[in-house]
């Protein structure tokens, strides 16, 4: 399983003056779920589209499943499944008709088509509404149909561009269960997201920001290697506490979570807890201050800090 599914060097795409993707280096192993985490406009979609051969890179090289992209894009199309946040099947065709159409486009042949359609309908619980127009399905049902369509031809690689943005939390859980089932069968999955909990489920992760890969590794490794110090402050008056922290030169970021403040400090800060306690005491604010374990969100904030 150490084989590489996707490799990209110096991948760059410019739209006019703006570099949507700027010198990305990627190496994604087979049979894993690899995530792109980043805010909107960080270049996730552009990168995925370049890897599929949908848009050409301005510079850099791409190899996907051993194929040279974009030169061999047509060969790649048989081996990838692609799904976007937006439902892109035909809303006026029924669920079954959509799958039948795609089976024909992938020229599966009548026997394999029938067998695969039956299999994905069973797997993604589509049987009961197979004859309803796809446009009338709920968000979660549409998403299951989308995944069924993307996996109909048993692609070796699945490219998912923010696939869960339009569905409820339960559907998202189900969806991720399905993705793990697919990797168990050997499928490589590349998924972009801006949800931390989803990113944490990936085997490997690249954090993208303003077109650059600013961090990559497994979520656990990224959290363990975070150079910043994380301090959690629990207080009655978080906004006053926040004001008290203001101006501390080693402070990198503060976020409020209910009555708690989550503060990130530069690694050079020798005694973050002590300094926070002193500042709170000076303003007569009560609160408990302690060192906390970094979350993936801290990693994300740390990686994208100072770039905005």
């Amino acid at each position: 399983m150490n084989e590489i599914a996707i490799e990209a060097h110096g991948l760059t795409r410019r739209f006019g003056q703006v570099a949507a993707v700027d010198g990305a280096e990627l190496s994604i192993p087979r049979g894993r779920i690899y995530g792109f985490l980043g805010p909107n406009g960080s270049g996730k979609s552009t990168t995925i589209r370049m890897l599929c051969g949908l848009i050409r890179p301005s510079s850099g090289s791409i190899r996907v499943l051993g194929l040279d992209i974009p030169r061999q894009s047509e060969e790649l199309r048989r081996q990838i499944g692609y799904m976007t946040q937006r439902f892109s099947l035909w809303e006026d065709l029924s669920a079954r008709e959509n799958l039948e159409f795609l089976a024909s486009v992938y020229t599966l042949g009548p026997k394999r088509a029938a067998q695969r359609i039956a299999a994905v309908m069973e797997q993604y619980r589509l049987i009961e509404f197979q004859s309803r127009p796809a446009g009338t399905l709920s968000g979660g049902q549409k998403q299951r149909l989308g995944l069924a369509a993307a996996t109909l031809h048993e692609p070796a690689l699945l490219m998912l561009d923010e696939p869960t943005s339009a569905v409820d939390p339960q559907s998202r859980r189900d969806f991720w269960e399905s993705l793990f089932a697919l990797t168990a069968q050997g499928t490589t999955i590349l998924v972009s997201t801006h949800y931390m909990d989803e990113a944490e489920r990936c085997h490997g992760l690249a954090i993208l920001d303003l077109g650059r890969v600013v961090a990559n590794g497994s979520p656990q490794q990224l959290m363990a290697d975070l150079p910043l110090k994380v301090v959690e402050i629990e207080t009655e008056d978080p906004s006053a506490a926040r004001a008290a922290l203001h101006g501390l030169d080693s402070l990198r970021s503060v976020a409020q979570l209910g009555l708690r403040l989550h503060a990130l400090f530069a690694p050079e800060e020798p005694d973050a807890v002590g300094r926070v306690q002193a500042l709170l005491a000076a303003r007569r604010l009560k609160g408990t201050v302690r060192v906390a374990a970094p979350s993936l969100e801290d990693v994300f904030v740390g990686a994208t800090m100072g770039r905005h």
Partner: protein
Amino acid sequence: MLPAPLLRIRAVAVKELRQMSRDRMTLAMIVGIPLLQMMIFGYGINYDVRHVRAGVVDLARTQASRSLVAEIASSQVVEFVARPAGVEELRRLIQNGELHAGLYIPPDFERRRIDATRSVAQVIVDGTRPGVDTAVRAIQEAPLPGRSGIPSRATPAIELLNEFNPERRTAVQVVPGLIGVILSMTMVIFTAIALVRERERGNLELLITTPVRSAELMIGKLLPYVGVGLVQTTLVLLLGVLLFDVPINGSLIDLYIGACLFIAATLGLGLVISTVATTQFQAMQLGFFTLLPSILLSGFAFPFEGMPRTVQYLAQVLPLTHFIEILRGVILRGASLGALWQPVLKLSIFLVLALALAASRFRKRLD
């Protein structure tokens, strides 16, 4: 301070104007539609028909016959551009659509001149063209040279022969062209919308990740519309025959080959529009934008002979102009496609150019 309802109305109106100013296509239409309409109705459409292409067959070759030809030519209603050897050739040229009228002066012209019961010459007019037959009718009133001393005639001096539409029925002139107009309306807009809708709904982004190739996608999408077009052709033709008694003088095979060519040309135009328009609404607007000049300038309702030269050249760019020529030629005048090679060739050139333009603009990529 304005009252609250007025403030809210103003807010909505300002928002509407802002959106309008950002939609370049609508903005272009606001100026484009009146401009186009003014040009077409102001310059293009004119009932004052002049310079109808005509041929003259003068078998008498006397001084009087020559002055009759000169007299008729000086009216400028017809322009004698050909001198066929005989009536047969004259008829053939009218059938092919190269000439629309002809003057025949028989060998016994001089004897007829002094006989009040017989006509001295014959004017043949292509009765399939609206406006032209009426205009040519005026020639009958041409003064006969050296007529003094001859008693007033019981029969008109010049006999008018309305070819292919002797009863001068409007339906005969209109119905064949209607096939072309109806196909233009539906084909261009249907295809443009069908393609743009797929892009608008995100279907295209999915399709281009599948193994289907651009050419396969295009052909697969257009083929059903060729069928739709042929059904429409048949329907109009059947209604024309059953309800309006339109004669079908030519070969049905030639007619359907011509129809296929035109359908392909209009689908090509629809494809080009679909590569320009980004929304279904824009595709609709552009479709109508091409439809208007097609209907008004193609010779369907108004004679070319009443249009200025520049507008006539513009009409040559429209595929409908050539298809109507083919329709009237085959259905009414019984011409073969071979005889109608000129409009067939022009239509083919349009088709090739439209497909080349569409193919160069459509790419199986997003950028």
